């Protein structure tokens, strides 16, 4: 009889284990550091694999008047070239609403849109052929004037989707009766995902007229569907596999599909494997980004700065097509209150159409842009009243103490649970960061120094967890136990570095009482778990963890029933007395505890003809949202957090440094504190980049000028704050029945970085004796900071 296998990838003895038993290392950590972790372009492919390069439009708006594919196909090294007319099935691959042609037929909607694709024997050969085709005039375009300003677009009624409104209470009355009315506007910049692994896929043809797609992709099921539709074949003929991504951040939710569709088309036409890998500059030009927003707010407050009501208007720059923009602008609206009661409020969300790449999901999914409006407003209120912004923030937090005031209900009608957690968390951070003593020191410093000005800000985060598209809140898992006792778990979520697979392994190991090394996770595949949702909305562990647990619970019940009959037929043991722990079935019997090894149990079950495979399923309960009313309960729960950032600003150059950051973040009962801390820190720094150095720049013709890391500056090592205290809130399990009472962590920490932006404004505000809050659009580059400082100084001189 076979015995248990010892798995080869055990951690080396010199790897230190963190103190917390759940703080386990990433399942691929050793593969990462040894270069053995394979990404798409690392995969071995058949020797005759074709390489694809894309012909991108250099014009932002116009018509493709001439595409000489026959001549392109004759270029040296070219095996095939395709345009829209070569697509046998659907040409529109819009993920939710139509509007995204896989290849341009006639109308060109942005610079970077794919006009045609070339397949050649080598990667370089394919790229050179595209260049030669353009150089030789094989592509001709009639250019038109592009529309690039989202505010002007809305004025002209150019929308990708209708405007949506959420309204609660007599907001106009509240504005009329308010002691003070605070008004402002801001432009919030977009953000390039800058996943380190660019868009890539490898497609191989199958013998059944289908394809197998290896892709760096957050939504394999959608890619499966779109590839099938483009090829005009059933979904079961397409298998999509994702082992891992070299970063996703939302940029591979819908934006990974076009390349798979194009490669599949070429693969089916040629009968050869085909791979695509977008060079960085093409990736940045062709794919959508975080939506830039234009926000306006007009809020009435009482003498204490408590918001009584008002209106917030958000314009999301969606680019040329809907993509996911409806849900993204919705989420911006859902988060335009952040952690504060708006009182009686109307929130309006517009979806502007412009001639840029279709903006898409990016960590926070509109939430960060919505929160920027209210955080700007709160700072403005504080300056107007001459109060510290933290004081005003605390006064406006959602609270339960007076239910009749409805200050625990959002403008879309959801009651905010766990408000006491929010208050406790803020208070703890206020103390641990020494906020008030530092405030005093900074005020004194600023009075003494004319060039360097320091700023400090504490901002909270309340982030709603669930897909707002209700049907996406479901997940599946597939659990296999083999006869040696080793366990294989598969689920619908994808691994992009966030540690989802590690957490799922931990869930399965915990349910089955096994060591982590006994459980292995395999690549996400559409032929294992079908019809899955994207790994997005921070939901990966919430949904797939529950599905994996469901599979374990069902299999465990079957094993217990079998064990009761097989091992204890005579005694008659109740399965309630059984548990799995430390690789054993532990049974409390009248004659004491009996332990049966996991391997023995499994082998006995196999011979007893018990199925050792199980599927699991989960659907989030209790959520609903009535879009016609703009009211509902769209979120299963909220995740909370808060951050304090301190900055030093050089008011001669606008350069600045983030000198200290303190974070306290709520993940309920953490599934893996090491991974969760990683998400909090990484999210914060990414958010900081969005608000500070990451500037997207388009020229007047609508061409993106920041097409690589030489010009698009994400944070680097030296941007890490010298003091960076990050902690998880302890002792507050999720009030809802999430997986082990944990909370989602992927997106919420991103918005903690708003504290950096607010601290910059705080430092600038010192130039106006803290009585004015400068407008500071984002990203707050040194240039914007200096120009804001200069404006404040000049205003002071003229006053």
């Amino acid at each position, binding site marked *: 009889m076979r015995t248990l296998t010892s798995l080869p990838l055990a*951690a080396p003895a*010199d790897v230190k284990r*963190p103190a917390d038993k759940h703080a386990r290392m*990433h399942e691929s*950590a*050793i*593969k990462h*550091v*040894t*270069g053995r*972790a*394979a990404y798409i*372009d690392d995969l071995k492919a058949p020797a005759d694999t074709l390489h694809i390069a894309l012909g991108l439009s250099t014009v932002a708006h116009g018509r493709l008047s001439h595409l000489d594919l026959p001549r392109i196909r004759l270029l040296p090294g070219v095996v095939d070239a395709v345009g829209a007319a070569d697509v046998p099935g659907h040409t529109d691959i819009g993920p939710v609403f139509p509007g995204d042609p896989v290849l341009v037929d006639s109308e060109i909607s942005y610079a970077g849109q794919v006009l045609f694709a070339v397949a050649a024997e080598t990667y370089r050969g394919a790229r050179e052929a595209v*260049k030669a085709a353009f150089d030789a005039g094989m592509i001709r375009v009639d250019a038109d004037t592009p529309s690039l300003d989202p505010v002007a677009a809305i004025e002209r009624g150019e929308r990708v989707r209708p405007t949506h409104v959420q309204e609660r209470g007599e907001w106009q009355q509240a504005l009329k009766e308010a002691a003070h009315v605070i008004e402002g506007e801001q432009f919030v910049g977009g953000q390039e*995902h*800058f*996943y*380190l692994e*660019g868009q890539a896929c490898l497609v191989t043809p199958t013998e059944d007229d289908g394809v197998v797609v290896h892709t760096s992709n957050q939504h394999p099921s959608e890619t499966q569907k779109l590839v099938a539709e483009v090829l005009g074949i059933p979904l079961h003929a397409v298998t999509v596999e994702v082992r*891992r991504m*070299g*970063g*996703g951040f939302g940029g591979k939710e819908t934006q990974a599909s076009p390349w798979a569709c194009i490669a599949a088309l070429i693969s089916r036409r040629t009968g050869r494997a085909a791979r695509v890998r977008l060079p*960085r500059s093409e990736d940045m030009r062709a794919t959508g980004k975080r939506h830039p927003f234009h926000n306006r707010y007009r809020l009435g407050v009482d003498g204490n700065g408590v918001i009584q009501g008002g209106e917030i208007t958000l314009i999301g720059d969606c680019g040329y097509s809907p993509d996911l923009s409806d849900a993204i602008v919705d989420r911006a609206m859902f988060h335009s209150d952040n952690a504060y009661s708006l009182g009686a409020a109307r929130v309006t969300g517009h979806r502007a159409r412009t001639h840029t790449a279709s903006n898409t999901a990016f960590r926070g999914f509109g939430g960060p842009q919505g929160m920027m409006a209210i955080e700007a407003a709160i700072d403005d209120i504080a300056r107007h009243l001459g109060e510290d912004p933290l004081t005003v923030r605390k006064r406006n937090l959602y609270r339960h103490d007076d239910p009749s005031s409805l200050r625990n209900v959002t403008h879309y009608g959801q009651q905010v649970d766990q408000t006491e957690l929010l208050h406790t968390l803020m208070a703890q951070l206020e103390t641990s960061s020494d906020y008030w003593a530092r405030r005093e020191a900074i005020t004194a410093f600023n009075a003494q*120094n004319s060039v*360097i000005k320091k700023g400090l800000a504490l901002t909270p985060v309340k982030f709603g967890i669930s897909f707002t598209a209700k049907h996406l809140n479901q997940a599946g898992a597939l659990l296999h136990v083999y006869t040696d006792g080793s366990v294989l778990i598969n689920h619908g979520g994808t691994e*992009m*570095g966030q540690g989802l697979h590690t957490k799922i392994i931990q869930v399965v190991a915990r349910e089955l009482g096994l060591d982590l090394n006994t459980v292995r996770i395999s690549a996400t595949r559409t032929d294992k778990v079908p019809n899955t949702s994207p790994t997005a909305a921070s939901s990966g562990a919430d949904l797939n963890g529950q599905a994996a647990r469901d599979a374990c619970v069902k299999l465990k019940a079957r094993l217990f029933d079998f064990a009761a009959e097989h091992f204890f037929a005579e005694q008659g043991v109740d399965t309630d007395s059984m548990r799995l722990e430390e690789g054993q079935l532990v049974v409390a019997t009248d004659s004491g505890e009996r332990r049966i090894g996991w391997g023995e149990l499994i082998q006995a079950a196999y011979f007893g003809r018990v199925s050792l495979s199980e599927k699991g399923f989960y659907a989030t309960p209790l959520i609903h949202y009535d879009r016609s009313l703009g009211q509902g309960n769209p979120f299963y729960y909220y995740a909370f957090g808060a951050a304090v950032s301190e900055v030093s600003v*050089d008011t*001669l*150059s*606008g*350069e600045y*440094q983030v000198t200290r950051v303190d974070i306290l973040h709520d993940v309920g009962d953490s599934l893996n504190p*090491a991974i969760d801390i*990683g998400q909090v*820190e*990484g999210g*914060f*720094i990414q958010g900081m980049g969005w608000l500070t150095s990451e*500037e997207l*720049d388009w020229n007047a013709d609508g061409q993106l*000028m*920041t097409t*690589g890391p*030489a010009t698009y*500056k994400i*944070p*680097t*090592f*030296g*941007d*890490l704050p*010298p003091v960076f205290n990050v902690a998880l809130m302890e002792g507050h399990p999720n009030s809802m029945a999430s997986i082990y009472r944990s909370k989602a962590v992927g997106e919420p920490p991103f918005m903690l970085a708003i504290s950096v932006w607010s601290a910059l404004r705080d430092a600038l505000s010192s130039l106006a004796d803290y009585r004015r809050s400068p407008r500071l659009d984002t990203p707050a*580059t*040194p*240039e914007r900071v*200096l*120009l804001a400082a*200069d404006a404040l100084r000049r205003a002071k001189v003229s006053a």
Partner: protein
Amino acid sequence: MIHFQLNGQPRSVAASPDTSVLELLRETLGQVGTKEGCASGDCGACTVAIGEVNAAGKMHYHSANSCIMPAHQLQGRSLVTVEGLADGNHLHPAQSAMVACHASQCGFCTPGIVMSLFTLHEAQPDEPAPLTPERLEAALGGNLCRCTGYRPIRDAALSMADHPAPRNAWWHDASALPAGDTKVKADGTSTEDSFVQPATLATLLAARKRYPEAPLVAGGTDLWLNVTQSLKRYERVIDVTRVDELLRCDTVTLDDGRTGWWIGAAVTYTQLMPLLDEHFPGFAHLLHRLGSAQIRNRGTLGGNIANASPIGDTPPVLLALEARLWLAGPEGERELALDEFFIDYKKTALGEGEVIRAVFLPAPRPDHTLKVWKISKRREDDISALLGAFHWRMEQGVLREVRLAFGGMAATPKRAYSVEAALEGQPPTDTTFAAARAALLEAFTPLSDVRSSAEYRQLAAANLLERLHLVVNAPEPAKETMLHAYAH
């Protein structure tokens, strides 16, 4: 053929002259642990370690961006990649510290970070300096990570010493390195005719004469972008990095009486650093912010000058120091003031077949002060929006020998003569600096581009004069005039 060592194994591989080390690894040798993130030397995912024998006869490793390093420059070198570090399951400290600190998430940047940590670790026995924040920034500033936020990577760097030493540090063995240089004959022909690697100035000039169309390459940190980004093909390239005369650094007294150093044009920024650290801390500080370790290890002073970019970092400093160039060409050798070298946008006084042999850097004079202020969107690994270099002395309460130069303000790096004139012989008063500010605004009409608007360039450049005003009046200011990370 390129004869080199890959992870300790001798290799001889043929490659076209415009092949990068990364292409050689991934496409020819099937070594896919090293990743391509940008193919422009800006993200560090492709970082490898290049080993060569130093003056002491020991192996010395530096990090390099393999995506923009010509494969032929591996000739006679040791190439270490992420696949080469672990001995079975026994990880190198750069690896085990990364695992222990949870410093990888998606893992795509990780091989490059491991290799930067490897070079940092392997430099430790030679330079047992403490791992200060500045040193860590210098070592890791060129490795972008989009997932972690860098804190665990910092922890990993700081804890490498606590991890068991490598079991088999084969990379210290210098004996197995293949012979380095290809031979270039007096007529410029050589054994590797498509990638010409002359060892002497005479053969360099001969090769230049024979192949006038072939570009010169040193670090390749700019030239190779033509290959990876613009798909340009080079049938032949002349490599200056092995030319003995271009690698020297000699002390000299010029005819004008100034003493200083002739610094070979192919001396890298990293090689230049100790000299600048000792004599021009302001200049050294600038080099810390020029590119990344990977770029500084390959890029050269001569390349930065010959490139003649308006936003090159060293030319304004060299202009303020009144540096000179030693040019060598078919007609012989000549000297030229650097100021006369830059003619127009990317246009220089370099004649046909001529090369920069060396750059004269004057020795610091004790009564002079040099300040170099670079302004960029990101502090590390970013190209200047503008850069100002200021050199002056005070004599009896007035400014003397004022030399000011700016980058990013005109089509070339440029001296600000009218501003110098406004300051020369004047006391550092508000009136003086107001006149200087006015002269500056008059002297330059900068452009708007992706790095900055013209408005910002004007305002920030004028404000640099304001900072100069503060510094001149308070050499040891009681009040802070600079952010600490920018000050020196």
